[in-house]
């Protein structure tokens, strides 16, 4: 009897190792609603495609909640393998010595086939070193575009198929829309991301020194230029007669556009699906306007969104799983699936071509405008992206100061100088800590 038990025990152990449970890979993310479902669907597809690894996506709340959860878990030595971090957290993750494993290193160590050239350069550059080594895998990427109300254009006697291309034209159209009986002409989300960061990149102007922070922590903000001043000054003047309406920070200005109070609006292409659901009128997507007197404009716009970071200190097998999951994520089919279901941009050129050949853009012209805007020119040191520590505080300072400008508490020039001065102090704090 005893012998039989031992034998069966041994059998169970052998069987156990032969049918070893797949290695679990935790993946913390911040995607809700349909985007969250799509994350789950992609992980399910990956898990069904092989039996060695099991990726478990866990929703951890907002971007900042997710990042904080990751930080706390890392400090408690129970970090997940993969974490989604928003673009403003990029420099913080990079500077976290010993906390992360760069993607290019991960791919090399696990001998995973990895060709950085398949990715869209403007997207990967945001998350790469200035030498082009990929630090995190771009996941959900978007860029800012102009949305316009075609019905309102018709009513104001404007051609709905000819949205304004330059800023001077744009402001004229905004005045005409207002004159046609609309509440206001235009509004914008994300004042820092769209009207300062993307504005600078689109005009091939530096937002900060040292290639916007890519080449060193001793970077400084330099966007208090006559060009930016002229731009914000014009918007401020137009806010006085409500041709420009302020709708709040982040993406809080969206209802102004979807309720038909303004005819033009700046928002991420990630908001395209949302507008398709909420707008009861015909709307179009156009490229960001530019000032024609600036040499080299338009350049290319920069991205926003989030990327996937890999935590340090995991086992070799886990890293192999992460690497094969990242390769899986980068396949054209999965990227096209993600792109078409969420509205975020594909990260590889092949996925874009695939989506095009499937006829997706005939029904959804908006996302293609965004991709073309990103691909407009090869990125320069002014348009690779922004790499600042304490970036969240800097954006907050910009938001607060912009509100003070619109409330007439401070002039545009003094406001821009304050943004740069206080922002630079935050960059110095970061430099001091991470030298």
């Amino acid at each position, binding site marked *: 009897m005893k012998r039989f038990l031992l034998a069966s025990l041994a059998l169970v152990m052998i069987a156990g190792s032969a049918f070893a449970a797949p290695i679990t890979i935790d993946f913390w993310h911040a995607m809700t609603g349909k985007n969250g479902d799509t994350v789950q669907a992609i992980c399910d597809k990956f898990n069904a495609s092989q039996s060695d690894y099991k990726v478990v996506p866990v929703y951890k709340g907002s971007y900042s909640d997710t990042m904080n959860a990751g930080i706390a878990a890392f400090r408690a030595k129970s970090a997940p393998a993969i974490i989604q971090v928003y673009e403003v957290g990029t420099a913080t993750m990079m500077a976290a010595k010993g906390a992360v494993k760069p993607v290019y290193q991960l791919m090399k160590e696990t001998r995973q086939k990895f060709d950085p050239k398949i990715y869209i350069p403007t997207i990967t550059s945001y998350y790469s070193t200035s030498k082009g080594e990929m630090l995190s895998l771009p996941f959900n990427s978007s860029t800012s575009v102009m949305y316009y109300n075609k019905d309102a254009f018709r009513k104001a006697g404007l051609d709905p198929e000819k949205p304004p291309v330059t800023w001077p034209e744009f402001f004229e159209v905004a005045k005409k829309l207002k004159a046609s009986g609309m509440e206001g002409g235009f509004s914008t989300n994300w004042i820092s991301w769209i009207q300062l960061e993307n504005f600078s990149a689109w005009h091939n102007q530096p937002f900060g020194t040292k290639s916007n922070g890519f080449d060193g922590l001793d970077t400084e903000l330099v966007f208090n230029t006559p060009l930016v001043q002229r731009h914000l000054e014009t918007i401020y003047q137009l806010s006085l007669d409500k041709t420009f309406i302020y709708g709040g920070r982040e993406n809080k200005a969206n209802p102004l556009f979807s309720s038909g109070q303004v005819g033009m609006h700046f928002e991420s292409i990630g908001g395209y699906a949302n507008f398709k659901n909420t707008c009861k009128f015909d709307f179009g997507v156009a490229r960001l306007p530019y000032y024609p007197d600036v040499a080299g404009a338009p350049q290319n716009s920069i991205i926003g969104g989030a990327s996937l970071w890999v935590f340090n200190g995991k086992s070799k097998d886990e890293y192999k799983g992460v690497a094969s999951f990242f390769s899986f994520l980068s396949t054209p089919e999965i990227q096209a699936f993600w792109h078409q279901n969420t509205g975020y941009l594909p990260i590889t050129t092949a996925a874009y071509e695939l989506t095009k050949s499937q006829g997706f853009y005939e029904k959804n012209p908006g996302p293609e405008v965004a991709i073309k805007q990103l691909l407009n020119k090869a990125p320069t040191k002014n348009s690779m992206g922004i790499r600042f520590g*304490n970036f969240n505080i800097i954006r907050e300072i910009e938001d607060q100061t912009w509100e003070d400008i619109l409330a007439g508490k401070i002039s545009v020039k003094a406001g821009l100088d304050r943004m740069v001065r206080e922002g630079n*102090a935050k960059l110095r704090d970061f430099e001091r800590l991470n030298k």
Partner: protein
Amino acid sequence: MVQQYEFKAKWLPYLLVLPQMVIVFVFFFWPSLQGLWQSFFLQDPFGGQVIFVGLENYVRLFTDPAYSYGESFGVSVAFAVCVAGLSMILALFLATQTNKKIRFASFYKTMMIWPYAVATMVAGVLWLFMFNPNVGVVAWFLKNRFGIEWQHLLNSGQAFLLVTLAASWKQISYNFVFFLAGLQSVPVDFIEAAAIDGAGPMRRFWKIIFPLLSPTTFYLLVMNLVYGFFETFPIIHQVTAGGPGKSTSILVYKVWRDGVINLDLGGSSAQSVILMIMVIGLTVVQFRFIERRVHY
């Protein structure tokens, strides 16, 4: 003759309070000490780099214009006082009215208590919807009937008014219950005697009822100040996010924003130590002075 039992074992009382002490230690003392410790350091969120800076985090709160801690302090005091004043005055008025012999008194009382069941966050959302400059009912009404342009996203006075209203509305129910209980414990004989002596309703209220209510009033004053200072975070978070500019960025909102969103752990810890000292101060005031001086 009352029999008194005495425990022989010296350790038993300690054993009995031990579970409570463990909870207090784990959830209060330990985090507080950590906060105090962290306030002397600059550190990156992952804890890889730690630089001892002494009191620099505290000094910077008051010298760095980007922190504008003094401004935030002023806003918090004004906000707490306005919320306490407004909600207590309205609650006292409502309590005296429902305490009269009127029809449906119990219906009114029930209705008055309802807002307390609304989560603070939801209260913020409700007020935000009504006053949304673009789609809010009240904002529309103000604009079209009174010609008042409601734009709390840029007008700091309006933003302050809005969060004060939302926070007070939420607190009225709480004050109402306490005031009503206080009013019902005022002996009817006193009021009748005063009435016979020819005192009118106003005089009866100020000379008899109000002084007898003073323990309730002082208790509520402390509770409301604490509420205004520390528990209104969800309303600020939901309605204004500290804006426009920094005009409604009260201390508890700022400490969260700097620590959780902006990952400035040292600065945020220094702020939380200051908040802790304030809470301790308020508690001391309540136990030492108010509870003794109030005429019961």
